[in-house]
């Protein structure tokens, strides 16, 4: 029952566990943001098929348990993708997808769906007149997005995006089930080999809590920054 550094305890293991959890969460969140932006665009554009596809994606992901979805992608999705890559001769026989990559992909597909709805809400909250004014100034579509839509959309979307960030750090614990190394799998390993379950799971919980509290502080700063120049009513 020790948290010493090196061979004497589990201190360094926990440290690397936190790093891995952060790595998985940050990568998955970044990919999820891209998926979310594409999803929000698909849901709001004028092409009926894309609307339908966006709705199906968010509905299906939201109604499946996250754990099932991770198992589905890890055990069913990854072999299928490998087979596909081998069959089209992109990679050689015997190629294996990195398990960390697979769980990052699984988490980003899940959170892509949640972020789709958060970002769609943000886009819809930007007054239409602003876009019309930008058009009247002769701005082309990418410039309108970068200068007008995006900065304002982020302001409305930041609380929701922050919640999803807090959720993704917590749901990254689920990937320990398929054997990826992160904080919970370190805690489990330490608890199993020493039989001090309460202590090591307690430490694990406190580290997650520290991550949450730290994120909350950071998010409130971000929110303040996104809202600078806006009068508080």
């Amino acid at each position, binding site marked *: 029952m020790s948290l010493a550094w090196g061979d004497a305890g589990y201190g360094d293991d926990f440290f690397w566990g936190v790093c891995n959890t952060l790595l998985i969460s940050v990568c998955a969140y970044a990919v999820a943001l891209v998926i979310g932006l594409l999803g929000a665009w698909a849901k709001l554009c004028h092409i009926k098929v894309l609307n339908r596809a966006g709705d199906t994606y968010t509905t299906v992901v939201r109604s*499946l348990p996250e754990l099932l979805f991770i198992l589905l992608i890890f055990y069913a999705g990854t072999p299928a993708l490998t087979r596909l890559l081998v069959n089209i001769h992109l990679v050689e026989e015997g190629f294996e997808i990195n398990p960390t990559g697979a769980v990052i992909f699984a988490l980003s597909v899940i959170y892509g769906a949640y972020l789709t709805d958060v970002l769609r809400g943000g886009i819809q909250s930007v007054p239409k007149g602003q876009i019309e004014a930008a058009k009247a100034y002769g701005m082309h579509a990418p410039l309108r997005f970068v200068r007008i839509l995006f900065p304002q959309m982020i302001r409305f979307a930041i609380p929701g995006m922050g919640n999803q960030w807090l959720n993704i750090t917590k749901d990254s614990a689920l990937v320990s089930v398929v054997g990826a190394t992160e904080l919970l799998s370190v805690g489990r390993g330490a608890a199993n080999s020493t039989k001090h379950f309460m202590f090591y799971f307690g430490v694990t919980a406190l580290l997650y*809590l520290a991550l949450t509290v730290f994120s909350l502080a950071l998010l409130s700063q971000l929110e303040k920054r996104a809202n600078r120049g806006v009068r508080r009513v």
Partner: protein
Amino acid sequence: MKFDVGYMIAVVMPQLIWAIPMTLTLTIVCAIIGNALAIPVALARLAVNPILWIPARLFILLMRGTPLLVQLYFIYYGVGQLIPGWMMRGYPFLRDGIWYAIFALSINTAGYTGEILRGALLAVPYGEIEAARAFGMSRSQVFWRVRLPRAIRICLPTMSSETILLLKATSLASLVTVNEVLRTANTIRIETYRVYDTLIGAAIVYFIIVYGLTRGLNWLERRLNRDRLAIPSTIKSAVKA
């Protein structure tokens, strides 16, 4: 290893359907206990006395700030370890993971719903509470007859989405040996090496349950807000004329 619809329908589905009652029981039991516990949590959170609000705040932070899976492991392995051996032998049901799963899911729900309920209790219009006082109701009567029912109505949409999240969270109980839908699917997967049939089967089952529960909760919401949604008879007759 390929996807076989016939096998999925003939062999996997019947077993998964037998496991649905376990998933639903877990959801309903934990929703009832968790939401009931949320009332004292929310009240303590709103209290002026620091002996009440500090623990309530810490409890909510702990429940919302740590992964449910860690809480479940802590309770199943950690708290389970504290139970002395003679008790385990005397009461074999203590070995069963389901009690730990119910405990973990219930207190987790209490933390989340407690915070939601706190907001809703604050959102009850003050005039209604004053009116209740003016009728001569005691403090507890005001709470149970006016403030709480009104607050529940206010947070009903949030509470029903919490219930859906709870239903999805019951899948974590599969990791502490509770034979619900996901564990059943996983057991077949490990025994037969059939990945696609079992996991996709489980996905279909969850999709249908969640869809059904969403419809049910929407119905409940409409029913509880009947008086608000109904079109007043004066307007109805005006439209007819």
